[in-house]
């Protein structure tokens, strides 16, 4: 199975390829990809200063998450994420300051706003895939037109939950797009140790639905295959498994040291296929992008990120209420006593 590709690494459309995204959308996508890249760098720096917790950067995979999220309608479609899909969540309406609030370790600051159709960031690998299937299945039972995009990686595909969820999704024709972002690594474990199969996408047909491989660093191709999968799901034809081939340019998280296991030559080859460069070249050839534009946007983006950091850092310190308030809808008497005891003691 050859990956679907529309945009060459030099930013030109491949012969016969058609750009279905209007220039205005491509510019919006680029803005979001650049914001994500800059937010990654800022988050890593904040973690180094002890102002953020462990952070999982997206860098190198921006086209996969922006292209796929742009195929969704945030008003009716849902995202069920793993934890490395920042720009998809931002596109869907999750504010950057809340994402930062999450990585700062403040649950109240990270709360998904009402009306944003998104599950929380999921740290356990693959467990969200069954949730996505139930959600899509439930939307259909309720007669709602929403589609669910479920994100996970090559590592999560080895979990039993992936199999159980795909299997059920095929049977109930759940309106789900399984978006497998193959970034080459599960921390230090390379893709070849996750599967002996030639592709992940080929598993789709074994569950009774299509699988497709796409160049995950090609904004146009990712958007096109996701749009097709969303249309398929919305029209009642069931799920699709998309395997987006991309690469984790950064570390697994701020706690990781990839120099212990990444081959520098492989890393360099993928850097040459950078998804942001590719879109900038495409727009430059059309006269829509140049150094001055890049400089102007970089300034705007920095200001946007600083504003989000400020909001995230200005959040009230958590209290015992934050620990107990949402443990249960109605707090049992036993927990009330525990809350009162901790409240009396105050902050340690």
């Amino acid at each position: 199975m050859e990956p679907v590709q529309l945009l060459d690494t030099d930013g030109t459309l491949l012969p016969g390829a058609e750009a279905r995204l209007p220039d205005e959308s491509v510019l919006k996508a680029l803005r979001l990809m650049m914001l994500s890249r800059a937010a990654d760098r800022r988050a890593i720096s904040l973690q180094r200063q002890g102002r953020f917790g462990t952070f999982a950067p997206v860098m190198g995979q921006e086209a996969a998450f922006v292209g796929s999220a742009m195929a969704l309608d945030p008003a009716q479609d849902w995202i069920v994420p793993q934890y490395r899909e920042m720009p998809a969540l931002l596109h869907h309406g999750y504010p950057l300051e809340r994402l930062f609030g999450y990585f700062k370790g403040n649950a109240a600051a990270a709360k998904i706003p009402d009306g944003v159709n998104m599950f929380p960031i999921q740290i356990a690998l693959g467990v969200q895939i069954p949730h996505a299937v139930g959600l899509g299945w439930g939307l259909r039972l309720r007669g709602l037109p929403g589609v669910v995009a479920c994100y996970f990686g090559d590592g999560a595909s080895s979990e039993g939950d992936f199999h159980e969820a795909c299997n059920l999704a095929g049977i109930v024709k759940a309106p789900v797009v399984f978006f497998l972002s193959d970034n080459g690594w599960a921390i230090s474990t390379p893709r070849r140790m996750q599967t002996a199969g030639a592709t992940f996408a080929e598993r789709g047909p074994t569950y009774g639905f299509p699988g497709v491989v796409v160049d995950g660093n090609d904004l146009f191709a990712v958007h096109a295959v996701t749009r097709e999968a969303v249309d398929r799901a919305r029209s009642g034809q069931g799920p699709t498994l998309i395997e987006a081939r991309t690469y984790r340019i950064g570390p697994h998280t701020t706690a990781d040291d990839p120099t212990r296991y990444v081959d520098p030559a492989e890393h360099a080859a993928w850097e040459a296929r950078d998804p942001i460069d590719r879109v900038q070249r495409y727009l430059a050839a059309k006269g829509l992008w140049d150094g001055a534009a890049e400089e102007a946007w970089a300034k705007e983006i920095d200001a946007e990120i600083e504003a989000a950091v400020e909001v995230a850092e200005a959040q009230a310190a958590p209290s015992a209420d934050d620990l107990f308030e949402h443990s249960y809808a109605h707090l049992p008497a036993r927990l009330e006593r525990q809350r009162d005891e901790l409240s009396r003691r105050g902050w340690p």
Partner: protein
Amino acid sequence: MTMMTMVQAIRAALFEEMARDERVMVLGQDIARLGGVFRATEGLVDVYGPDRVVDTPLAEGVIVGSALGLAVAGMVPVAEIQFLGFAHQAFHQIGAQVGRFRFRTHGRFGAQVTIRAPFGGGVRTPELHSDALEAQFVQCPGLKVVMPATAHDAKGLLLEAIRDPDPVLFCEPLRGYRLVKGEVPDGDYTVPFGQLREARTGEDLTLVAWSAAVQVAEQAAERLAEEGISAQVLDLRTLVPLDVDGLVKAVERTGRCVVVHEAPLSAGFGAEVIATIQEEAFYSLEAPIARVTAPDTPYPLAGIEDLYIPTVDRVVDAARATVKS
């Protein structure tokens, strides 16, 4: 009032709640056409159809995991795990996901999910069908753990569970399904969580149990009465939330207590009951609190399960010793 077995009472609750609330659906293995291996869901599919009564693939993890997604979509799922012993294959979804979903979303979403699961020994099942795992789930914050002992409570507690905005693990004693019979009110009623039931009044000591062990305790109390020992029997009904006040008041009155459960001894829920009593009512105690439980061995093959499960004799012996000391 209608005389019903426990399984009939559970079925009645499901029938009535699916009629009352069209968001309620049941899903699990063999629950639709077959009506469940114990027939608890028999006939539901004929009335409510295959969209709301769903035979799932044989996969505990996705039965529970998809129920969480269904709940967020606005359905009210009642998932069946065919035997609690197989809930280990869904443990990551029950404890780490469904149980803490309200907490993880800071209240944006709850998980109105009921998980029904039969358990308990005495019916000569194959391996892993009988294990009493309830204490393992008590250590899953956000989850409620409900253990009915009577037909009346099975219906009233199940209706309460389905309507609870938080997830509930509803454990059904499989040897009680047909053995336990009682008067069950017709129509709608609920039994609130966190309120224990005094199954038998008594003055000399308190026997604490839940689920099928309540019957063992009641039979022991009957035997003890013949020798002039008056034993109170408490049915905890729900382990989470625990009726601390009811438990403490009872033991303060009798000063003596024996806890009976089918799960292994170490870190069984009996340990929590005893720790709670010693924290709250230590100076009322006239004797050490005893436990009658399964040993700390795996649940055995059927041929020796009678040795494993707490017996009336063992409870009577423990009660005698407690009263004498």
